[in-house]
């Protein structure tokens, strides 16, 4: 299944109450959505009707009450394999991405459950292979410590080879094999027939050297966290270059950066939604400037929402100002490199500036904390959003996007109702699925069995 025309690919990063820390408070959001499987099925049908490639079920293997402030949607959720089966039962075309961490699983169990979901869904299962940045998970699995990157990737590499072999091990007849490696001794065949896709789709995310390498060698889709166009382009060309070294054609591997999108029929309405979400997140008490600025990553860690954090980041002491007061234009001459990045981000997401009628406030600077550490974030009308998507897609930064909805269902339906038709009008995105399996959506053939 090869198509001459390059096609945009879209996924939905699904955390049931949204990816914004206050998404669950947005009017119309459903605060108990994480356990409402009917609602989750309905949201999947919404993006299926919009012809999305996939729904992405994220995961983390440890939780902590501290997450309530930073990532409430990530505190707890349905287990991804069981959730995926329940979603498969209510849908017919969309790919379903299941996150599973080899560090804390057995290859046989992952191969088995993934193959089973691929059968139940008629060839729509995908595995998002993560090795996990959550050190805390080790304590839930009888381990004294979280392994370092090299150890996790050595393990994950062998794990994946075993899973791939198991998936191929039972077609018309069972194929016995006896894998003996550094970490695993695994006898096949699997007790599930070869999946409809042969090999379910593999996703991988990560920025480390080991991660880029594993993705370039093995993944069908790479989900990246590039914060801006330049970073995305660097990542894109690096990973596609690595893939070529492994003898893969660039089109076999889709690179989809994460993208937060808040859209509405007009720019002003989109900005109002963005401001409203941020207003729900309380500010932290003011404090000394000394101390390290958390750029996030560990459980419940993020920069404190106060002007001390802003001051540390931009290199100018702005403590003591009224958060709602406008920031003087002269600040642009005083801030460091990070400060310029922050100001640019605030301009782009609020359409406010240091001069003119609609001015950047100190609170806007606080709301922009964390920029540059995660994914790109767009606020705008459908044309503005589609322009950015097209720019990245046409200029070697993305093959598509994994869309992060700040609040659910609002940010999902706004994207499907407003942005998808705009992308379709431009001929960038499909108006019908070309096939029934996730491989079909990605234009990938079913691989031959190794046996």
């Amino acid at each position, binding site marked *: 299944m090869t198509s001459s025309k390059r096609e945009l690919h879209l996924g939905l990063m699904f955390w049931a109450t949204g990816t914004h820390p206050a998404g669950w408070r947005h009017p119309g959001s459903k605060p108990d959505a994480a356990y409402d499987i009917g609602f989750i099925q309905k949201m999947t049908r919404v993006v299926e009707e919009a012809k999305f490639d996939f729904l992405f079920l994220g995961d983390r293997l440890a939780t902590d009450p501290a997450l309530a402030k930073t990532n409430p949607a990530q505190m707890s959720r349905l287990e991804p394999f069981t959730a995926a089966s329940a979603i498969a039962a209510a849908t017919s075309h969309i790919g379903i991405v299941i996150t599973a961490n080899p560090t804390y699983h057995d290859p046989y169990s992952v191969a088995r459950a993934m193959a089973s979901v691929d059968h139940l869904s008629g060839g729509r299962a995908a595995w998002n292979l993560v090795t996990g940045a959550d050190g805390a998970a080790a304590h839930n699995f009888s381990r004294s410590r979280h392994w370092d990157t090299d150890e996790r990737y050595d393990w994950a590499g062998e794990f994946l080879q075993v899973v791939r072999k198991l998936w191929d091990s039972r077609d018309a007849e069972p194929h016995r094999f006896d894998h003996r490696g550094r*970490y695993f001794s695994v006898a096949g065949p699997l007790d599930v027939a070869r999946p409809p896709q042969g090999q379910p789709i593999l996703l991988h995310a990560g920025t480390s050297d080991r991660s880029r390498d594993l993705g370039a060698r093995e993944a069908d889709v790479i989900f990246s966290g590039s914060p801006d166009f330049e970073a995305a382009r660097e990542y894109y060309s690096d990973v596609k270059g690595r893939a070529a070294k492994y003898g893969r054609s660039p089109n076999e591997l889709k690179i989809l950066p994460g993208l937060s999108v808040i859209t509405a029929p007009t720019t002003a309405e989109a900005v109002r939604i963005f401001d409203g979400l941020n207003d729900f997140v309380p500010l932290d008490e003011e404090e000394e400037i000394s101390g390290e600025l958390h750029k996030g990553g560990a459980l419940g860690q993020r920069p404190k929402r106060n002007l001390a954090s802003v001051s540390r980041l931009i290199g100018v002491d702005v403590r003591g100002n009224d958060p709602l007061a406008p920031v003087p234009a002269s600040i642009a001459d005083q801030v460091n490199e990070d400060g310029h990045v922050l100001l640019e981000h605030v301009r782009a997401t609020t359409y406010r500036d240091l001069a003119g009628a609609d001015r950047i406030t100190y609170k806007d600077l606080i709301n922009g904390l964390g920029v540059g550490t995660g994914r790109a974030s767009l606020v705008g009308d459908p044309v503005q959003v589609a322009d950015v998507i097209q720019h990245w897609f046409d200029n070697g930064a993305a093959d598509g996007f994994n869309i992060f909805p700040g609040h659910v269902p609002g940010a999902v339906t706004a994207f499907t109702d407003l942005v998808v038709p705009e992308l379709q009008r431009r001929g960038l995105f499909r108006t019908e699925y070309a096939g029934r399996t996730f491989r079909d959506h990605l234009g990938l053939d079913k691989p031959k069995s190794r046996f």
Partner: protein
Amino acid sequence: MSISRARKPFLHLGYALPVSESPSADPLQYDPDRIVAVARAAEAAKFDFLLFDDALTAAADENGFEPFTLASFVAVNSSKIGLVVAATAAYNEPFNLARLTASLDHISGGRAAWNVLPDRHERFDASFSRDAGDSLQRVDEFVSVVRGLWDTWEDDAFLRDQASGVFVDGAKIHRLDHDGVFFRVRGPLNVARPPQGQLVIAHRADASANWGAEVVFTEARGRDELLTFANLTPIVDTARVLDGEVVRGDPVQLADHIQERFTSGEVDGFTIRSGFEQLTEFTRLVVPELQARGIFRTEYAGTTLRDHLGLARPAGRFSSDAEKQLT
């Protein structure tokens, strides 16, 4: 949880899905719609539960769906019938199994049970990089960790107050801090407390008193506090023939056989093990006979498996009620 013999109202019936029974060539094995149709037939007949066996415990070369993913698929295609899923302690991590089971209970609205399998097989030891030689003691500890994890979120830990912005009550989310011989598990689980509080635990033989089981699959009555289920393969036929689990007879004779064993107190119910066609015959001809005799329900009285089995919902070990019980 003790079951009062005096108030047992109804016979209980389960159906063991024969999904991994047939040889690999059987296409039905990978036909979820057909399996859903069977599940719905059992639900229409007011069965207490479906039993999802685990091929990992089969010595023969069986294959089929992984049981939790299949059970979840069936859960959203049904509304009342219980889902008893077999899983071995040997080839799992307690944290992962606690998530799968709790998650299935949420997806099904409180209809899940875990059939604890202590079995190991050489064939699968070889598939899971396991050394031989763990003990029943490991299974005991495994079950206790899973049950502990189910309780780490109190029932009312979620406030989700959009107005005040308080999502959870952190004081109602607990670490387990289990530090045992085989496992060290800190918790909390990353899934809310299951709708049933604790899933119903079943096991195949009356092997361990330490698992908190409430259901036993056995040929002779287990400990008195356990609901006892015997296997039965009923075949609607003209002549009455008894051959172990296989019982042939006309609908009245089959109902007689079931009623006798139930009213004598030998068992509380049966797990029907038969092919799809025989199940249809049983639900069409024998279930109405049992209902006419007043020993089997004509409507579900509740929505959870605990409701169907007449089992109370346990308080969490970390809840303030539980503390009151301790003092």
